[in-house]
């Protein structure tokens, strides 16, 4: 009987310490989870702002002058030809100043 009571006492004490330990660990983990969640929120918020900023920086209104500054422009029929010979013929025609239609198309 005494052994039983003693055993129960030891068991109780052990489980009390164990529970205390677990509860302490849980609180630590909770803190870490909260910190992680805060970090996630901050990251999501940063992503939202960065996404908006990237879209703002990449808006065509801003890109267009930069592209034009590089000498770029929309593709025209002048950059395409049915065959290499046709392209060569056009170049020769233009250097001769005979292709009025071609030059007018730039307008």
């Amino acid at each position, binding site marked *: 009987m005494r052994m039983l009571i003693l055993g129960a006492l030891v068991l109780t004490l052990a489980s*009390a310490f164990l529970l205390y330990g677990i509860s302490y660990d849980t609180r630590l983990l909770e803190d870490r989870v909260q910190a992680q969640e805060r970090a996630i929120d901050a990251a999501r918020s940063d992503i*939202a702002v960065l996404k908006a900023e990237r879209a703002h920086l990449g808006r065509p209104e801003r890109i267009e002058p930069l592209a034009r500054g590089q000498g770029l422009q929309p593709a025209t029929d002048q950059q395409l030809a049915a065959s290499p010979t046709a392209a060569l013929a056009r170049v020769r025609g233009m250097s001769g100043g005979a292709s009025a239609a071609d030059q007018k198309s730039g307008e």
Partner: protein
Amino acid sequence: MGPPEAGAGARQQARANGPLRTLLAMLVVALAFAAVAGQLVRLALPGRSGPSSTLSETVGQSFARPDIVDRNGRLLATDVEVYSLFADPARVLDRDEVFEKLSPIFPNLSRDALRADLADRTRRFAWIKRGLAPKTAQTVHDLGIPGLDFRLELGRAYPGGTSAGHVLGNVNIDNKGVAGIERYLDEHVGVESVTGATLSEHAPVRLSLDIGVQHAVESELASAMDRYEARGAAALVLDVGTGEVLASASYPQVDPARPTMSLDPARIDKVASSTFELGSVFKTLTVAMVLDGGIADVDTMVDAREPLTAGRFTIRDLHPLGRPLSVAEVFIHSSNIGAAKLALQAGPRHMQTFLKRMQVLGAMKTEAGSIAAPQVPEPWGEIETMTVAYGHGLAVAPLQFAAAAAALVNGGNLVVPTFIKQPADAGLANVPLITAATSAQIRELMRRNVTEPGGTGKRADVPGYSVGGKTGTAEIPGRGGYRKKAVISSFLAAFPMERPKYLVLVLLFEPKPTGAANHEVLAGLNAAPTAGRIIARIGPLLGMMPTSASAGGSSGMAFDASSPAKYEAR
């Protein structure tokens, strides 16, 4: 032997009570242990941290909205966290100090309103300013005024600025959509009601707009307004197959981030929210009507030599040729008399039925809201039939007209304009409005109007895109009649004309006879070249090779436009 007998009895009883007492003691001890264990478990359970905030306040409810992206996934609208400044009146020490310090930062802060808000010390919460930029919030924070604090909320950001402002609409201070696509999100896509700043988990809403095309249209309209000193301008690009609107611009523009701007009547959306008498572009419908109804064919002659009297109006031609015209010439030389006579042959009833079938007379709705209802003449007699034939007397929203015109060139099938990207395999619900043969004739006439030397649309031609179109110069109705010098000049274009894929409608409001337009206010000299410039810019963006050879062969798709865009928002 009484007492010993009794003593033995008591002892016996005590011995009999012994196990009961032990049991009781053990029960008490077990209960005590159970209580201890219970307490330990209770403490170990999560979610029992500190007391929650007991601040009684009107909780600022706001809405987490999905992003809006264009057809290629480029961002048009998104939620970002913003700071909102509030005061706890009980903790504010000096109301006047609060105002003195804040007024340089917020110039339009009202002193009386602020004093009234802060006067009631039983309140623990009063908004001062919502939706602050991080920098402004930092400045206020640095002032160190007691009783002021910030709360994070969601605010709507439009990275494209004013681009597509009319289509996007706007939201109110609680981030709830009140107009345009933003309202559509609230009503059909779903927004989440949140407290604080929780971003939406919803997938972005993909519009049919293309930011690149939208920008090209807007910049060409802006330069056209400069060039022709116009008071306003509007344009739209429509996919004639699916009804998707690729670009819709109206000048002067609105900024979706400034909702008050859209209240200005001058800034109303000219594409969908207002109706106009569109003028001669309407002859496209008139000619389609007579061709489709078998009333005349392209070569039928119409006598358009004498001006036509219709009630108190006299219908004249701008450039009379002084000879009978064929139906094709009526279209190409834009003869008012010819169009009126053709409509008269068809009759008022036939015309109304036809226009109703083309969806020009009824109400129409898109995701961005209702299109302004057409103003139909009442009663509709012969005079009205004649004027409507060349686009006067019937006011219709440009978007609604564009949808009807798209049906004329796409083979005759119904087009329902939409601002939401349609799945690639959606196709059209084939609802034929006119025959494919009539559609082919209209396409040929529109192309001839651009290629022929006498055509009014020759300045809209873009080499390689085989543009076709129709001009319109409509006098704007004013007090007591039409104003001679104030016109809406318009150009209805489609390309490539062999198998039209896109329709472009350009409107210039009250352009001046500037040098760039040969000192005239004719659509052929201002709206047509503007449409040409727009097509030259958007053609390559839409993945079309500027060569008639490829357009004649297959769909004209030369660049790989079907592969997913490299630029995705998420």
